[in-house]
């Protein structure tokens, strides 16, 4: 269809099973979030506002906190690497591995690594990388990309997964029982953990004060990946800092509840450097790669609030557009409202190509309502729409608004148009290209045009 926005086109063509997996899964997560927060707290919104203020404070002092984090991490015995660009980040990881002649590693889920396509880069350089989060493992087997921040395979059903396992030799036979799928992955992956020489993780938070890197998982995969490995590399975006350990109480309470309705994610790990000598299992070396990759551009923009994001996916889950279109429609690792704001500015050189994302919203505001750090997502979407317009990036189906503005600021003409437009004939049709309006009317009836009737009635009432 002409004039159709890419995300609408994607939603139109999406496989029905996939769409229903996505919408069912995200609606269930939305319900769990609501009951967890509202049964545990009298006023969860106060907690969200507190979290947002701590994040704003941190972002406004990010230079100081980054330096503080660096020295705390070093004090803990970590090697600290700064990576300004995606290239820098990939190089940093690769050279750590090369210097130690490491060729086999496992990786726990990390959005930062998705951003820079780290796996592809390492594999291209003859390093065996195995994703260990169950969902990411399946994504890797399928050569797919995750469609959700927390539940990467929300778009897949058990039958597809069972077929993948059979095809890839993870199992000899077809079994689509979720428990059997999980057991098979357990057996396969623990063998790989034990063989791996290094583990790559993300990081949910870093406390600048203590240099603790905080990692949360439900499956225990990062823990298992770390226990037998010599080297731990944590790839972390520079916006993940919090000032103090104490602040973590606010974010940990919100993260699990917002993501999956859990009071805490099962495994919440506080890592301050390589293992102690007395501990037999765990990395002897820890590297923290602090990655920028566009974050300072976001910080410089009028959408800097998006850097408060703690990647809980609550906005994705509640978003009616995401539910119809799935994460893949957003063409970046971040789907849903957070992706619609973040991607076009984080990947700034792709802005023209991604400028349609902020349009993919009815601006309903549900995302802001569920956001644990109270990001005003609809406002940011609107600012990006303004930016696209100012930069003259054309959008499919855009209605020319200048004629509308002229009409709406010419009251006499407006009144005439109202009364003269009975039956819609003279409705500022130049407002809309004909085709979208026809599409609109194909789905809906319009009420009868009664332009000017109220004004007439009111005049009469006032004169009576």
């Amino acid at each position: 269809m002409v004039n159709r926005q890419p995300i609408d086109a994607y939603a139109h063509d999406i496989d029905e099973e996939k769409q229903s997996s996505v919408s069912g899964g995200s609606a269930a997560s939305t319900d769990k979030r609501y009951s967890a927060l509202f049964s545990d707290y009298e006023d969860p919104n106060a907690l969200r506002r507190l979290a947002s203020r701590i994040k704003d404070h941190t972002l406004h002092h990010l230079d100081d906190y980054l330096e503080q984090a660096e020295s705390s991490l070093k004090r803990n015995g970590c090697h600290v690497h700064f990576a300004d660009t995606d290239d820098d980040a990939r190089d940093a990881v690769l050279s750590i591995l090369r210097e130690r002649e490491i060729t086999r590693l496992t990786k726990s889920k990390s959005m930062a690594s998705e951003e820079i396509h780290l796996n592809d880069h390492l594999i291209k350089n003859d390093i065996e990388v195995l994703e260990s989060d169950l969902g990411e493992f399946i994504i890797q087997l399928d050569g797919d990309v995750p469609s959700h921040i927390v539940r990467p395979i929300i778009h897949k059903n058990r039958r597809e997964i069972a077929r993948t396992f059979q095809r890839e030799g993870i199992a000899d036979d077809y079994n689509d029982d979720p428990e059997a799928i999980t057991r098979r992955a357990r057996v396969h992956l623990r063998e790989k953990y034990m063989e791996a020489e290094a583990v790559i993780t993300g990081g949910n938070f870093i406390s600048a004060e203590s240099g603790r890197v905080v990692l949360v998982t439900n499956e225990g995969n990062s823990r298992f990946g770390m226990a037998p490995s010599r080297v731990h590399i944590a790839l972390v975006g520079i916006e993940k800092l919090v000032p103090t350990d104490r602040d973590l109480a606010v974010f940990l309470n919100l993260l699990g509840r917002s993501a999956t309705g859990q009071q805490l994610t099962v495994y919440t790990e506080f890592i301050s450097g390589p293992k102690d000598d007395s501990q037999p299992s765990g990395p002897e070396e820890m590297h923290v790669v602090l990655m920028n990759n566009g974050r300072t551009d976001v910080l410089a923009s009028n959408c800097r609030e998006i850097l408060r994001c703690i990647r809980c996916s609550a906005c994705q889950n509640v978003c009616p557009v995401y539910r119809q279109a799935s994460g893949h429609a957003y063409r970046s690792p971040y789907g849903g409202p957070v992706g619609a704001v973040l991607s076009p500015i984080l990947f700034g050189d792709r802005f023209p190509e991604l400028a349609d994302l902020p349009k993919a919203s009815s601006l309903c505001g549900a995302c802001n309502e569920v956001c644990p750090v109270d990001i005003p997502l609809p406002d940011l979407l609107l600012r990006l729409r303004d930016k696209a317009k100012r930069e003259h990036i054309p959008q499919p189906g855009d209605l020319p608004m200048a004629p509308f503005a002229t009409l709406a600021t010419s009251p006499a003409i407006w009144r005439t148009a109202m009364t003269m437009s009975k039956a819609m004939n003279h409705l500022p049709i130049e407002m809309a290209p004909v085709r979208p309006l026809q599409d609109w009317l194909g789905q809906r009836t319009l009420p009868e045009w009664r332009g000017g009737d109220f004004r007439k009635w009111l005049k009469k009432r006032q004169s009576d």
Partner: protein
Amino acid sequence: MPATTQRPAGKKVLLMATCLCDAFYDDVARATVEVLQHLGVEVGFPENQTCCGQPAFNSGDWKSSRKVARHTAEVFAGDLPVIVPSGSCAAMHFHGNRLQFEECPDGAVESLANRTWELIDFIVNGLGIREWPGRFEKPTRLAFHRSCHLRGTGSGEAITSLLSTIANAEVVPFGQAEQCCGFGGTFSVTFPHISGRMGSLKLDHILEQHPDLLVSGDMSCLMHLTGLAQVQGRPVPHKHAVQVLRDTLQA
């Protein structure tokens, strides 16, 4: 969405009827005048009013929408409360305008933001009307669609609680009430598939409760929903909340 702080109330107001009522829903604007007058409120109607400018604002054409907003602010200049029978247009005044004028503050626009009320919010929280002496002839199930622009404002609670005090009225809950109906103004034009699906889902949830009447504080949502329902062969009786207030009084 932050509601405005101390807004003026009082028995003399200006009505912004909205372009939708101007074009299609004259009876909603009439009901607004009738109900406010019934409550002893003097209602002024500036003739030069047009639209709040939201279509251009949401499209990202802020140059155009600021032009419309300035016009509206001029038309409604003064210190009287401005009453809008639409949560969406009201929010444009006190939220959208603030966003688009962030970098070029405008005193008249800010003044309008500080004086704007969504209609039922004004009746309940501005005038202090907590009970409505209306009556349905027989038990009536009302499905109240809380439009998205009422999020974070006092209007949703105001409408639900006021409707609930009408004799024989029952406000029935329905599934996924926090979800948008899919209208979103120009969104419904540029995202026809998603908008239509969202509307159909909303209708599914509402109709599952077999309401006698679908009620909202925003005619734009109702136009979209009932227009879809009509084409889908499942028409649903509907009214703006203020029509319910007026009609139950007459009954």
